[in-house]
């Protein structure tokens, strides 16, 4: 990792610390203050967007640990979110406190994730993707069949003490706290023994095994951790809209979580933030802009309805394609380049 000129590591602990320089502390504290004050001046629409963004980031963090760090690509991430959402919703609807239900949702999702990660002992890459693809369909089927997935589960508004988190403004604080904890946890995993084992398994599993790393164990651990994140994110989503339904966790969503990981940059925690903001923002823009363009045509035009419906897909597809063709290493890589050139500016050497 590149550091500003003059920053040296004088010990192992310093090399692993997240915040390195006084200026970074200033940035961090300013960002936290801004995040906590956001509901005071942002519109309700923007706060709703931010809540969804936060939930997306939490879920994508799990996928980043699983796929970006441990190299076990999952095409069923939304299904694991669904497990968390329905566990939380069903437990909460039967009278258990929301926060206990949320954690239980994460644990159940982790357990289900480990079950579908079992083939990772024998297969990898493409085959494992198929196992998680099977997870997407089988989990949807089970939840629709036995856990009221088709009609959905209603849950009451989330309460902290006497304070009801009814609106996006209130719920934002819950999401923000969970997000900070989860980000810290994810970042910490990546700088400990477990994280280094994940990276070793990703880069060369045979060499990792030869070094004495229990690869199967770490793969299953990655599934557990990644799906725990997904479960918590799913539970938070159900708590936010007071409803859990299988429609929100389709195969399409699973694939887009994978896209977030790639767009952000495989194997970077910052990449999750960039990727989530990029994809979520793109989705939001596509859904806001398309009706406007659709309305430009007279309603009698046969394409008017089609444009409104299809433009999100078009924008999505084309921007993603262009993005991959011109920026295949992800946004986090570009960010590092930007920071480096910013440090050297205007007297860079070249």
């Amino acid at each position, binding site marked *: 990792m590149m550091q500003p000129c003059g920053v040296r590591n004088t010990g192992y602990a310093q090399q692993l610390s997240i915040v390195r320089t006084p200026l970074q502390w200033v940035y961090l504290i300013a960002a936290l203050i801004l995040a906590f004050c956001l509901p005071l001046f942002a519109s309700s629409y923007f706060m709703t967007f931010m809540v969804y963004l936060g939930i997306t980031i939490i879920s994508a963090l799990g996928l980043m640990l699983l796929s970006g760090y441990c190299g076990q690509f999952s095409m069923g991430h939304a299904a694991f979110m669904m497990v968390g959402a329905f566990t939380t919703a069903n437990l909460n609807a039967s009278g258990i406190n929301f926060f206990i239900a949320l954690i239980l949702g994460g644990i159940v999702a982790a357990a289900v994730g480990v079950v579908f990660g079992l083939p990772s002992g024998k297969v990898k890459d493409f085959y494992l993707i198929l196992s998680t693809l099977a997870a997407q369909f089988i989990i*949807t*089927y089970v939840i629709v069949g036995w856990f009221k997935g088709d009609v959905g589960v209603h849950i009451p508004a989330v309460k902290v003490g006497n304070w009801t988190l009814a609106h996006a403004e209130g719920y934002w604080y819950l999401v923000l706290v969970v997000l900070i904890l989860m980000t810290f946890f994810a970042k910490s995993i990546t700088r400990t023994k477990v994280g280094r084992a994940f990276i070793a398994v990703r880069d060369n599993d045979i060499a990792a095994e030869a070094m004495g790393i229990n690869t199967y164990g770490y793969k299953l651990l990655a599934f557990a951790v990644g799906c725990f994140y997904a479960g918590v994110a799913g539970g938070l989503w159900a708590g936010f809209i007071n409803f859990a339904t299988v429609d929100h966790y389709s195969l399409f969503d699973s694939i887009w979580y994978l896209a977030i990981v790639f767009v952000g940059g495989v194997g970077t925690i910052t990449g999750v933030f960039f990727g989530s903001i990029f994809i979520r923002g793109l989705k939001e823009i596509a859904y806001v802009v398309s009706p406007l363009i659709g309305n430009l045509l007279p309603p009698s035009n046969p394409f008017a309805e089609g444009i409104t*419906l299809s433009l*999100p897909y*078009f924008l999505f597809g084309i921007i993603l394609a262009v993005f991959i*063709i011109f920026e295949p290493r992800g946004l986090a890589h570009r960010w590092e380049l930007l920071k480096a050139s910013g440090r050297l500016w205007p007297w860079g050497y070249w």
Partner: protein
Amino acid sequence: MEAQLAQLFTYLIPGISKGLVYALIALGFVLIYKCTGIFNLAMGEMMILGGYLLYFFAVQIGLPLWAGVILTIAAAAVIGLATNRLFIRPLIGQSTNAMVLVTLALASIVTASVILIWGSQTLYVPKLFPDGGIPIMGSTLQWNYLGFGGVSLVLLVGLLLFFRYSRFGLSMMAISEDQQSAQALGVSVKRIIEVAWVLGISTASIGGIMLTSLTSVQYGQATLGLIGIAVALVGGLQSMGGVIAGGLLVGLVQGLSAGYLEGFFPGSLQEVSAYVVMMLILLFRPQGFFGWERIERV
């Protein structure tokens, strides 16, 4: 006994014929995967596009059915060529992940075009074969199912012979084995990859024509194409012939679970049964029935 046997037939025949169609889609998928190493996420969309194109040629323009089918396959071949030129070639030298992701973008673009041109409502494609069929043991073998099974089987066997005996097919196999050695021996990798895309997308669209004319066309059906992937896996990805066995197995399981197990489980077990088979195969025989066991393992 007689009646039960007849009932068994009514479940088996659709299952087998659908299974063979899935095998065809799987073959296109395996072809692209083996020659290029790309997991083509747009396969389901390409398949559905075949159904829409047939609707366009046969219903909207009003051409005779056979002309519509030929034009659809030709159009699919052009789409395969364009995919390779516009999306895959610019990414040569990048990681496979980037290429897989670009097929995802492609899937999105195809869905968008379909909605834009044909709207989001369900369309009905004319049936390729006449109604009715051969009466056998109290039930009828419908021409549709027989026809699709037969056409798929002929195409599958034809393609397998092509890969086994023609010069071009053999160079395709060589590339899937080892790209660099094949190139060193004078095989044009660039051209073969192009042909792989054209063939792969064409077979997918043929599968799409058949599957959609059994029911109807709707862009949400693209997930059906994923069953083709399950089939490819059951047969073994290295084995082209395995897709037939895989298709038959998955088709049988689907047909039987639709017939006999539906009453005991909620929802439509038929759709999920293919994935249950796939999951079991992954757990207990990951190389599939006819694939090679890889010695390198962890």
